[in-house]
């Protein structure tokens, strides 16, 4: 067990014979060294390299989106408008939303860790359509370039939700360009989802039955189904908005007899399931992390696997809960409120089953597990406050307030980003072949958790007190809580930067990881770190259930 890096033993940069410093044997034949030219990266069809391309691009977009958030929080320090104009503020939060949703959260875990791990976990040499995989990265980048272009042109001020007729007729930003950017990036999502589904169906190694799939795979399967079925609806809706702006199409324009609420139906039919695109992969990651930390099979494997599929399916039936005060029929609201409660059941199953998994485990407190614990805590708060806003009478009060802002940040940022960092800390040794400083990892896990709560918990109170979201200028009574939130955001911002430092450091000075630094199960840990280009010299045969840790029959006496 070499998971703990001792700083005294770290390789000496002056000693060129130090095995920790120079290129190890496995590294020399790994996918990382299979071609050193830029061309070998930009035209690669290796899923592992495409995953790294994605990782670099989404880190970049996370940074841009984060800067926009910093502007927003800095401006909210005082009740008046002092840093930005009203228009500038609207552009800042719109940009924050658009970039974080479509260029960070949705591709975050699936396109990086999903891409990297799905073939490794099921014993395949690559995804089913390797060239399509690379193409989807290029499409993603094309969409990203459009967005950056909009940024240079001055941004857009509709909010990431593009509600009509504001976006279609009244907004004066570059709505068409942003719609085009999101439209393009949607195709990247669809192609990735398609690739994952076919891969999971067709490329499982012999013996890797559905009942033996890691839970990470199950949740990515569920995510892919949503990607394929929901994204096209968003695409066509954005196309209709563009047509509305360019040619006066009129579907959402009441002056022609159109209905602005139709947009909301179409938009949320995608965008509610999109929340599950963001969170399902995170749930899969946490299942892996919890099992690995406890060295035990996940409690109730079938329930946890099934709940991923259930979340994906039921997640399509609840979009109307975004429209309780929109003038939607009250009968529709009652139905959607009920269905929204139903979707809590499979999420609850996961939480309780993870907790049960820890019972009698052999629990490691390494960074990945700390991130997983952080995830569970934030996800529980986010989920249960989600139930609060699914309650009709409570939602009428809380809709479009900071309560909602806090709720979805707990799920999407607290949850998904914690899981993303958890995954990064867990599989980093596999991806780059080097170990990082565990102490710093634990510290950053704790700082992220604390900073996050500091930022977003006050927003629950703000919301209940009636602070509407997307407000630039606000009554003075809200200032204390807003300031707490902004201070928390600065802690969070620094905490997010910490891993960048020690992970980068580990690239050069980290100890070689060995095949299985955490001593856990899973096909990806049976091959060298970093993996060779073709993953498996010989396609493995699977003959046991997942998380097949030895069960201790007798009490161990010291």
């Amino acid at each position, binding site marked *: 067990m070499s998971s703990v890096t001792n700083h005294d033993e770290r390789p000496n940069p002056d000693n060129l014979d130090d095995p920790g410093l120079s290129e190890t044997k496995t590294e020399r034949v790994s996918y990382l060294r299979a071609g050193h030219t830029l061309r070998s990266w930009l035209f690669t069809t290796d899923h592992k390299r495409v995953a790294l391309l994605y990782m670099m691009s989404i880190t970049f977009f996370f940074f841009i989106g984060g800067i926009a958030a910093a502007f927003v929080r800095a401006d909210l320090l005082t009740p008046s408008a002092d840093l930005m104009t009203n228009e500038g503020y609207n552009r800042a939060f719109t940009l924050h939303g658009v970039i974080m949703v479509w260029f960070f959260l949705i591709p975050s875990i699936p396109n990086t860790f999903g891409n990297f791990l799905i073939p490794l976990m099921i014993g395949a040499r690559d995804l089913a359509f390797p060239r399509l995989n690379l193409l989807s990265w290029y499409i993603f980048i094309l969409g990203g370039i459009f967005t950056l272009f909009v940024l240079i042109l001055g941004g857009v001020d509709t909010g990431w939700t593009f509600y009509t007729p504001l976006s279609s007729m009244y907004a004066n930003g570059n709505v068409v360009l942003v719609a085009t950017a999101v439209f393009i990036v949607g195709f990247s999502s669809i192609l990735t989802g398609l690739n994952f589904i076919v891969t999971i169906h067709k490329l499982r190694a012999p013996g890797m039955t559905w009942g033996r799939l890691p839970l990470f795979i199950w949740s990515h399967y569920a995510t892919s189904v949503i990607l394929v079925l929901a994204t096209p609806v968003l695409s066509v809706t954005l196309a209709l908005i563009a047509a509305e702006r360019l040619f006066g199409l009129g579907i959402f324009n009441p002056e022609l007899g159109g209905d602005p609420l139709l947009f909301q139906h179409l938009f949320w039919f995608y965008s509610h399931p999109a929340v599950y695109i963001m969170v399902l992969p995170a749930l899969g990651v946490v299942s892996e992390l919890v099992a690995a930390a406890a060295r035990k099979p996940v*409690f109730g494997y079938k329930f946890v696997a099934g709940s991923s599929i259930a979340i994906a399916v039921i997640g399509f039936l609840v979009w109307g809960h975004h429209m309780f005060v929109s003038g939607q029929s009250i009968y529709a609201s009652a139905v959607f409120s*009920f269905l929204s409660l139903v979707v809590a059941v499979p999420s609850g199953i996961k939480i309780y089953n993870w907790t049960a998994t*820890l019972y009698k485990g052999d629990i490691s407190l390494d960074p990945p597990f700390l991130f997983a614990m952080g995830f569970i805590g934030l996800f529980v708060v986010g989920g249960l406050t989600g139930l609060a806003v699914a309650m009709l009478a409570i939602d*009428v009060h809380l809709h479009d307030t900071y309560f909602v802002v806090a709720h979805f940040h707990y799920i999407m940022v607290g949850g998904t980003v914690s899981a993303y960092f958890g995954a990064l800390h867990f599989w980093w040794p596999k991806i780059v072949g080097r170990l990082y400083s565990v102490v710093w990892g634990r510290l950053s896990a704790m700082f992220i958790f604390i900073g996050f709560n500091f930022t977003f918990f006050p927003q629950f109170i703000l919301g209940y007190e009636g602070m509407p979201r997307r407000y630039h200028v606000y009554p003075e009574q809200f200032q204390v809580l807003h300031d707490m939130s902004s201070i928390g955001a600065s802690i969070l911002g620094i905490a997010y930067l910490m891993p960048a430092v020690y992970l980068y450091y580990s690239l050069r000075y980290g100890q070689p990881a060995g095949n299985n630094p955490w001593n856990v199960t899973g096909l990806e840990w049976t091959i060298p770190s970093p993996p060779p280009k073709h993953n498996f010299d010989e396609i493995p045969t699977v003959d046991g259930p997942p998380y097949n840790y030895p069960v201790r029959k007798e009490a161990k006496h010291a």
Partner: protein
Amino acid sequence: MNDFASAWPDAASAYASNVDLLALFFMALVVILSAPVFILMVVFATKYRRGKNADRTEPINRNMWVEVSWAVVPFLLILFFYGWATSLFIVHASPPSDALEIKAVGKQWMWKFQHAGGQREINELHVPVGKDVKVVLASQDVIHSLYIPALRIKQDAVPGRYTELWFNAEKPGTYWLACAEFCGTDHSAMTGKFIALRPADYSRWLAENGSDGSLAAEGEKLFVSSGCSGCHSPDAKVHAPSLAGLYGRPVPLENGDVVTADDQYIRDSILLPQSQIAAGYPHIMPTFENILSEEDVLKLVAYVKSLAKASEENLP
């Protein structure tokens, strides 16, 4: 009047207190459902920490009944709250028929209110306490949302249709009102005051802000000045439906449907006249889409409504 420093926001109506009660009980449920997870996670992480000596024999990996129970029991608890929240919501969504009616128009970026007596105000809403008040919302441009936190209610104002909001304020005072739906540049400036007055004060306020005439009277002026009377008056030569006694009655349409002549129908007939043509009349009414503002249309609706009442009174 308001204690802005208090953490719990003011509740200015019985409905608001009911919502608070529901929220408090729900918060208790949140604690009940999440506490076991937090406590057990910490307990397990401490007790079964790697390297620590603990009894780890015979761990269990599945138990159907336990799993089903922790799926079903929380759901049933939540279901109880669903019933509670939904019944409150239905109260919120059903304005009493005899409520005092105030018209509100949202436009970038202000709220305009019109009282039945023709009193108008911008970004301020004066209402009497202890009376059911219904606000009919319209929007001139984009979607807005009238939000009165002290009443725990909000409702979107959607262009192209009317929506409603009602309340019965109990505590006199000045509260905050805001636009909750993002509506463009000065969204955060679209706020105002919600002023609940004792009935006597309200009457005084109405008198002090008296206008040239009631909403219906202003509608009548528009009816003449916009040219509606040219066709719709009883002595007009053009074959157009008479509007006397129309409001609230069923109207047979050309395509066989029958609709009730409510606010929305009258609004649509003015702005989208070709959409629901009354049976037996030619398609000649022009649209007033770009001629009349939402406020004007509300006045005309009030006028047509008053014609119905007038004709009822004339009945023997």
